[in-house]
């Protein structure tokens, strides 16, 4: 530890931050007090220390007063530690000879009503920081290699956009999608607002490009099992789920579907149609191969239960089939691609950065009490499938219960959104617009039909959508009713909707053929588990938390991990694409460097004291500490140590130290704080 001798020439720069600090903390008193503190040779205050003139003031003072250590008293170190350390570095100081005293977030702002105590606290914080700084060593960052390869989690539109952007710029990408096919929710849509394009025109070329891209390794039907490592050097274990179809042999002829005796509700059609146990969601799905769903295939269930349990199944022609005997798909396959013995496989990939694009789901209808489960009460995505020319009804708006054309349809916006009691408090951002689009398409399909929309506020705030919604009301005579449905119940052929129109104050009753719920967008169910594996934070709803809502919207607090699309918050398609490109560009910037520099304030071993007890090895979460087999002392891997300090506390012989976070520094800070009142008392 060099220069830790307490003889540094220390300079203090106190920032007013406009009135943010100076409006509460008495600047003059702070500067006067601090000037008297041992070791301080210079102290100044300025309106905005972070501005160009503020930084120049620092530079001049450093050279004029030959300062070799600095405390900046201002906002949180997360905002300006780097800024000021750069300033210090530009004058030849080691950046670790500058420390931040946070007197804004931790002092002036939360104690705005108590200026006197806040001033006292600010002085104490600065003094403690000075004492800690006196023992700081000058450190140089460790150089670590950078793997210029990215992992993208999620094969929806956000993940594909990110992957293509990175791959087309020349870097390799590993794309992991949990479902067997690419495309995400966008592939389920009938068309997009406000231009009414068919999403296939966008998504199918993207899917094809991803699947055939020489620099993209696609793992569809795969999940992230484990992530270890750190920025530049992540190691990812990926579970490739068994599809029971040999991709190399399958030519997607489709002959296996018909013979399969099992029919279950199709996830892609959101239960409006059935699919077989061996299936592909739609003809253009990518990758072009079916999978066997081991939850419904009677052969696989039978094999899994090892003959226990009943896997007999009644086929459509009323034969009883014993599952273990069923080999219908295998027998039908001309290519010999069916392989019931296939197992999940684990693969390991090394990447330098990660994009999380796990998307969203719709909120479960179960939480919304009044919407009884009735086949004619459907959700927005189901209605998309009804409208879709390739959907279960070939685009005819038939109600699910009896296949009759729905003549009166009620849409309910904010089903679960903006509902603090049963649903989620936030707005799902896209419902107002897709509901308007659905009513338009409905009127095109059923010209004599009547559409009603219950809404709270119409949120058509995207360019071009205001006109779209207005046109809706005027041209297609959609009835927009401001209010929430109070009761929805079946009444014979019809579904009754009761509500109050809050604009007229009148009660309304509508006898509808079908009700469409614009269900709230919620994070995908696996988001929390994945976030934990990646060591990133989720908010209370389960959306991934960005590093800064305003200025770092696609970064996370864990370096090397970025967010794209609705994993972060409900977004429409353009915003999703913009954030996906944004996340990609953050990675492109990262990859443009030759190596990464690693924080040097990490653990180190005093070999003369170490007894080789391996306590530090057992507490290290990163396996950064190991025992040197020859010397029988601990070793720290500089590239892997994250500088948490756990080993320091665990070390019984106190051989392990944390650079610039030494016990002596903690003792000195504690002394300043604990003695503050004692001294005055």
């Amino acid at each position: 530890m060099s220069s830790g001798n307490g003889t540094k020439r220390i300079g203090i720069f106190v920032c007013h931050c406009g009135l943010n600090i100076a409006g509460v903390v008495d600047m003059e008193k702070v500067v006067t007090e601090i000037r008297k503190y041992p070791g301080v040779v210079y102290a100044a205050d300025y309106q905005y220390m972070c501005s160009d003139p503020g930084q120049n003031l620092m530079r001049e003072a450093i050279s004029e007063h030959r300062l070799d250590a600095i405390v900046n008293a201002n906002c949180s170190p997360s905002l300006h530690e780097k800024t000021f350390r750069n300033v210090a570095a530009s004058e030849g100081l080691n950046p670790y000879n500058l420390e931040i005293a946070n007197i804004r977030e931790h002092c002036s702002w939360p104690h705005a009503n108590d200026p006197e105590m806040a001033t006292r606290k600010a002085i104490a914080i600065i003094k403690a920081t000075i004492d800690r700084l006196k023992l700081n060593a000058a450190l140089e960052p460790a150089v670590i290699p950078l793997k210029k390869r990215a992992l993208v989690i999620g094969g929806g539109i956000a993940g594909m956009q990110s992957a293509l952007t990175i791959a087309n710029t020349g870097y390799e990408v590993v794309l992991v999608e949990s479902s067997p096919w690419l495309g995400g929710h966008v592939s389920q849509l009938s068309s997009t607002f406000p231009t009414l394009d068919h999403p296939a025109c966008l998504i199918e070329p993207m899917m094809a490009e991803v699947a055939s891209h020489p620099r993209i390794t696609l793992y569809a039907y795969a999940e992230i099992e484990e992530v270890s490592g750190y920025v530049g050097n992540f190691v990812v274990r990926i579970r490739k789920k068994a599809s029971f179809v040999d991709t190399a042999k399958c030519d997607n002829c489709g002959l296996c579907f018909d013979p399969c005796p099992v029919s279950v509700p199709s996830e892609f059609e959101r239960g409006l149609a059935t699919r077989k146990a061996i299936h592909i969601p739609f003809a253009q799905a990518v990758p072009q191969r079916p999978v066997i769903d081991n939850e419904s295939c009677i052969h696989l269930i039978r094999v899994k239960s090892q003959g226990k349990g009943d896997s007999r199944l009644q086929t459509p022609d009323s034969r009883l089939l014993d599952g273990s005997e069923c080999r219908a798909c295998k027998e039908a396959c001309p290519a010999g691609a069916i392989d019931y013995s296939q197992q999940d496989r684990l693969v390991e990939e090394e990447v330098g950065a990660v994009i999380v694009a796990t998307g969203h789901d719709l909120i479960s209808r179960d939480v919304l009490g009044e919407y009884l489960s009735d086949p004619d009460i459907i959700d927005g995505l189901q209605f998309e499938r009804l409208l879709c020319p390739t959907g279960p009804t070939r685009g005819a708006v038939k109600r699910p219960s009896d296949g009759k054309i729905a003549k009166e349809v009620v849409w309910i916006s904010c089903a679960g959104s903006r509902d603090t009691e049963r649903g989620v408090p936030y707005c799902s951002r896209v419902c107002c617009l897709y509901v308007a689009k659905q009513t338009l398409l409905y009127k095109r399909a059923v010209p004599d039909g009547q559409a009603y929309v219950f809404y709270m506020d119409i949120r058509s705030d995207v360019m071009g959508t205001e006109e779209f919604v207005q046109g809706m009301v005027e041209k297609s005579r959609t009835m927009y009713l401001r209010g929430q449905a109070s009761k929805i119940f079946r009444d014979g052929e019809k579904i009754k909707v009761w509500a109050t129109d809050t604009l007229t104050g009148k009660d309304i009753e509508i006898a509808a053929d079908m009700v469409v719920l614009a269900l709230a967008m919620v994070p995908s169910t696996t988001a929390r588990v994945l976030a934990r594996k990646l060591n990133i934070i989720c908010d209370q709803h389960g959306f991934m938390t960005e590093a800064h809502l305003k200025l770092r919207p696609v970064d996370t607090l864990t370096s090397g991990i970025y967010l794209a699309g609705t994993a972060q918050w409900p977004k429409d398609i353009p915003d999703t694409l913009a954030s996906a490109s944004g996340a990609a560009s953050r990675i492109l910037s990262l990859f443009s460097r030759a190596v990464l520099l690693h924080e040097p304030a990490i653990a180190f071993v005093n070999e003369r004291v170490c007894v080789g007890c391996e306590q530090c090895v057992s507490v290290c979460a990163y396996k950064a500490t190991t025992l040197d087999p020859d010397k029988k002392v601990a070793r720290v891997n500089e590239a892997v140590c994250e500088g948490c300090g756990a080993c320091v506390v665990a070390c019984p012989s106190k051989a392990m130290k944390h650079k610039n976070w030494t016990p002596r520094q903690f003792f000195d800070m504690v002394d300043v704080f604990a003695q503050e009142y004692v001294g005055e008392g």
Partner: protein
Amino acid sequence: MADLDGEFEPVLVGFFCNWCTATAADLAGTTRLQYPPNIRPIRTMCSSSVDPVYILKALLRGADGVFIGGCVPGDCHYVSGNFKERRRIAAFKTILDTLGLEHERIWLRWISAAEGQKFAATMREFTAKMKELGPSPFKKGWSI
């Protein structure tokens, strides 16, 4: 340790984990949530780097209460540091009792980076509780 107007103002030292509690404190400040100014913040990289010796030192030097804030279980930035600290503090508290110091003077809490509200509320609660406990017996012993 009476303040000038006679009301007891406890001396409180806080060790805040850089990734969660210190960030929550930033958020509490940014959203202008108010809490008593008694707490003196020390940023640590991880709650697991808070050696019980630091806590003891603070108490011996006159602190009336010590607060350690870490990440929510399962969300530790360093994987499992908060669990390590939880075990250490539990053991440490039993020793404090034998020394005749109320173990309620040591608070270990999990406050995530998004919980500015919780941080401010916890600080209000902590300060109130320490006021209720009165001056630390360690300190009383010496200042008489």
